[in-house]
């Protein structure tokens, strides 16, 4: 083995290194062709930790995502894109009413349609919610499957339903399941004390706020492709946030042992909390595939996606709050209802973030015959934020106190929100804004207003990821975990963390994920992925580097702790002269099977608890009621930023989802007809390119902690800030999202 020692410049010659301690690590070795886990002793020169930020070469910079070229060229394959020999396309017929008896379903007629190969009745008697899957038709083409659905000539007879709050609140409302419509109240706090504090407050306000049901509106609908052609094995492709979370269920549906089914999610077109598990459509596809012994492609149509694939629950909150003359909140009393369809819905604990001296909370759910709400990016928090920030503003105006000062006074003194509020206020131009203690008036056509909001989230990880790093003899490197990449940049930071460890460019590392046969990966819900996965990747890479150093030590007869892995190559500082060899050459000394190391979660590499603060500037036309959001500012604590580019994208993405929640999004149900009036992208309006405001994202670099998940907090306070800004602009206090022109005009008293 020809190693070429090279003289080195000043790069890191560690003199007088003390004799290293030893520690044992586990690594995999191939012995007689068999993978064997062995424990090896390596120098324990330092305990695992992220390098100082100033020493990071790859991490904490802007890293273009590694799958970017595939995504921008159409080469990235999503579940929707899977094409297999003999594959049939399935479509669902769903209940067009919240509750109905299935009066006609002409299965035989559907079977006779040209191209139709299978008709499955899922629910032939009675539907339980609007969008309840009734039947599935599979055919050689999508059009033929649609023909088959039409040929079913489905007829439904309405049964009494509950599809709105008012109906649900009436005694004897059509029951959802067996437990009626209104749940028992979940309470918190001492009501008598909170009410007494209200009485004693210098200023009091009371108002009722309402939030709509927001749709996840993932561009890739929910769905699966089940590749089962008879035989003993199957592969199931699923658009999901949890690659390890559906294969076992699919196996059950297919009548196969769990180890015979591989779950794959190479790329997925948006989840935002709605995509966990096999789901009904997945079960149905498995059943069809099992019967046909052919691959089945079952992706929901857009209408079905709106009706049956979950949403962010809505709700109504009646809040009373009081404060002292100098602005300290004395009391917060809330009576809230959640609208989660068949489910309870979600609402984060209120008071949200702020700390009044006393509080009392009562929360009930009004259940309806609508699809069950699901987790959606910071479940329960945008709802809580809207009520909280709105009443807070109303109280601050009542007391005549600067909106920023009022917030700071009622947030914990040590919280990051304090300096974040100062910073976002500066960025949004608060100092020069004329309406700090009372709102502007509705004059002219461009009333400018500013609003604020804060949020918090955990974002910590758990011991749910197993990562393997492999170094091949030719120098190629793989870092692998079964986990999925939702578009958050998981692949990229897996490669980047590994590259950082070895002194390699990101492109030198291949990240493999999205396969249930790879190591366990955590489900991506609640911003847990990064704080669970990144430490495990770091651990695996660290172990690989340590094992590699031990190997080189024996090959080169140099002390293992003297090796350093730098972009220039592998250096050694312990010998008489520093040595250097290229990565490729060093790898060439490895045995044929290369080197593998495993990594598990390391708690000390991550942290939890994130604060985020946002401000919004809007322009309101009091003549038309139209709201234009001009500028949104976000400052967020993120711990160690792995990839500043992806981080900014994700924060801005959350803000844009909040923008939609603020100005235009919301499910509209006609409770009498029992239909959703906006179950399409034509009528359910998400923000588009002409509505995107100027955006400022500030990463809170004072936060020196380890890795923390960041996806949820930026989606929370934006809508509240925008609503407050609309009021601040012209005095239109709209207490119901979204802030459509009609509601703004009503709040101005121009329309009744």
């Amino acid at each position, binding site marked *: 083995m020809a190693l070429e020692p090279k003289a080195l410049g000043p790069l890191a010659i560690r003199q007088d290194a003390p004799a290293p301690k030893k520690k044992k690590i586990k690594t995999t070795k191939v012995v007689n062709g068999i993978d064997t886990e062995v424990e090896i002793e390596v120098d324990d020169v330092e305990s695992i930790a992220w390098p100082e930020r100033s020493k990071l070469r790859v991490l904490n910079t802007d890293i273009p995502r590694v799958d*970017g070229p595939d995504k*921008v*060229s159409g080469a990235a394959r999503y579940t929707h894109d899977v094409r297999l020999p003999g594959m049939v396309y399935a479509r669902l017929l769903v209940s067009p009413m919240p509750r109905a008896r299935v009066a006609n379903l002409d299965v035989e007629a559907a079977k006779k349609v040209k191209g139709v190969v299978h008709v499955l009745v899922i629910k032939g008697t009675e539907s339980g919610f609007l969008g309840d899957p009734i039947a599935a038709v599979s055919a050689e083409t999508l059009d033929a499957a649609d023909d088959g659905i039409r040929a079913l000539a489905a007829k439904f007879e309405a049964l009494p339903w509950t599809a709105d709050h008012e109906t649900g609140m009436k005694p004897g409302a059509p029951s959802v399941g067996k437990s009626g419509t209104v749940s028992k109240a979940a309470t918190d706090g001492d009501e008598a004390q909170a009410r007494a504090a209200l009485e004693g407050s210098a200023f009091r306000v009371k108002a009722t706020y309402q939030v709509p049901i927001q749709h996840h509106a993932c*561009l890739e609908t929910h769905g699966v492709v089940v590749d089962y052609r008879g035989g003993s094995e199957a592969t199931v492709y699923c658009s999901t946030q949890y690659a390890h979370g559906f294969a076992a269920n699919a196996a059950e549906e297919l009548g196969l042992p769990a180890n015979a089914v591989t779950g794959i999610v190479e*790329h997925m077109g948006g989840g935002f909390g709605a995509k966990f598990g096999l789901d009904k459509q997945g079960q149905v596809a498995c059943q069809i595939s099992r019967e046909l012994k052919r691959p089945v492609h079952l992706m929901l149509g*857009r209408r079905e996606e709106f009706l049956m694939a979950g949403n962010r629950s809505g709700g109504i909150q009646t809040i009373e709050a009081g404060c002292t003359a100098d602005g300290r909140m004395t009391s917060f009393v809330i009576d809230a209802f959640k609208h989660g369809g068949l489910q309870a819905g979600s609402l984060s604990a209120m008071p949200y973030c702020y700390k009044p001296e006393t509080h009392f909370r009562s929360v009930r759910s009004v259940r309806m015959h609508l699809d069950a709400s699901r987790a959606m990016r910071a479940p329960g928090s945008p709802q809580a934020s809207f009520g909280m920030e709105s009443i807070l503003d109303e109280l601050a105006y009542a007391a005549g106190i600067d909106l920023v000062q009022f917030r700071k006074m009622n947030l914990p003194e040590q919280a990051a929100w304090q300096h974040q509020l100062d910073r976002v206020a500066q960025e949004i131009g608060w100092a020069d804004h004329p309406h700090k203690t009372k709102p502007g008036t509705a004059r002219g056509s461009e009333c400018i207003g500013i609003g604020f909001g804060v949020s918090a989230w955990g974002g910590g990880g758990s011991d749910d990821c197993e990562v393997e790093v492999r170094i091949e003899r030719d120098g190629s490197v793989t870092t692998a975990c079964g986990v999925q990449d939702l578009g958050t940049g998981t692949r990229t930071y897996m490669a980047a963390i590994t590259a950082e460890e070895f002194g390699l460019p990101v492109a030198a590392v291949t990240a493999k994920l999205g396969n249930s046969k790879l190591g366990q990966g955590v489900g991506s819900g609640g911003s847990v992925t990064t704080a669970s996965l990144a430490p495990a990747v770091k651990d695996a890479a660290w172990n690989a580097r340590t094992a590699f150093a031990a190997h080189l030590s024996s090959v080169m007869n140099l002390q293992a702790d003297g090796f350093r892995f730098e972009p220039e190559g592998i250096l050694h500082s312990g010998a008489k002269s520093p040595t250097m060899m290229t990565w490729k050459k060093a790898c060439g000394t490895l045995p044929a099977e290369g080197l593998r190391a495993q990594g598990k979660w390391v708690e000390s590499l991550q942290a939890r608890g994130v604060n985020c603060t946002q401000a919004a500037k809007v322009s309101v036309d009091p003549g038309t009621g139209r709201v234009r959001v001009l500028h949104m500012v976000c400052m967020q604590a993120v711990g160690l930023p792995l990839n500043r580019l992806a981080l900014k994208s994700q924060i801005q*993405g*959350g803000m*844009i989802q909040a923008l939609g929640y603020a100005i235009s999004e919301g499910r509209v149900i006609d409770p009498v007809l029992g239909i959703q009036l906006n179950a*399409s992208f034509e009528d359910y309006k998400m923000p588009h390119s002409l509505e995107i405001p100027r955006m400022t994202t500030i990463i809170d670099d004072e936060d020196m902690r380890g890795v923390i998940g960041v996806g949820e907090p930026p989606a929370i306070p934006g809508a509240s800030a925008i609503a407050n800004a609309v009021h601040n602009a012209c005095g239109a206090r709209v207490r119901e999202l979204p802030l459509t022109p009609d509601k703004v005009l009503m709040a101005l008293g121009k329309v009744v």
Partner: protein
Amino acid sequence: MADGADRIPSGDEAADLSRRRFLRGAGGVAAGGVIGPALLGAGGRATAESQAAAPAAPASAPPVAEELGGDVAIELAINGQTRKLTVETRTTLLDALRTRIEPPLTGTKSVCERGNCGACTVLVDGEPHYSCLQLACDVRGRAITTIEGLGTPSELSVLQQEFVTHDGAMCGFCTPGFVVAITACLKKDPKASEADIRGACAGNLCRCGTQPQIFEAALAAGRRMAGGKG
């Protein structure tokens, strides 16, 4: 759409079509609403020949009310290649690309299937079109460019490179539609302003909220193209 001059089938295509009863799928035709006189005129060989002879005046050819329908073998010019495929008269260009070509071109995404979201945008003779609102039969003889025709992962177009650099894709499902729409915009005017670019992709939806990065990418690409570095 009434002027079918730019959609005239070639002589061979028209002859081929003449053997099909083309309007059987009347529902599909009505739904698409885009079968113009050129197609209707392709009902007989004589008509086809007269069209081939006088392509500039297709509307003058008398429509032949022969019933057309069922499977139709057609050729489409996709990404500079002639692709033979079998479609139904009602088959959209989107479905043709994704499910009727081997290997399929799945970079063009199916999201709303009704012209609301822009994810299926392709170029037809250089102009952006929602492929879910185009019938495959109707774009014979026209140059179709899909996302795959703009660049490959190893040879990205300037705009695609800038999308990567500026992080213009998160989940990536809407990305091909944005890339195609903005490609058309920058081809017309590399100096397009941010307002122009916003307008060019106003018909494209993105749920991850990548728009700010997309605008940056488009402006950067425009600068490179205008500077001749593209």
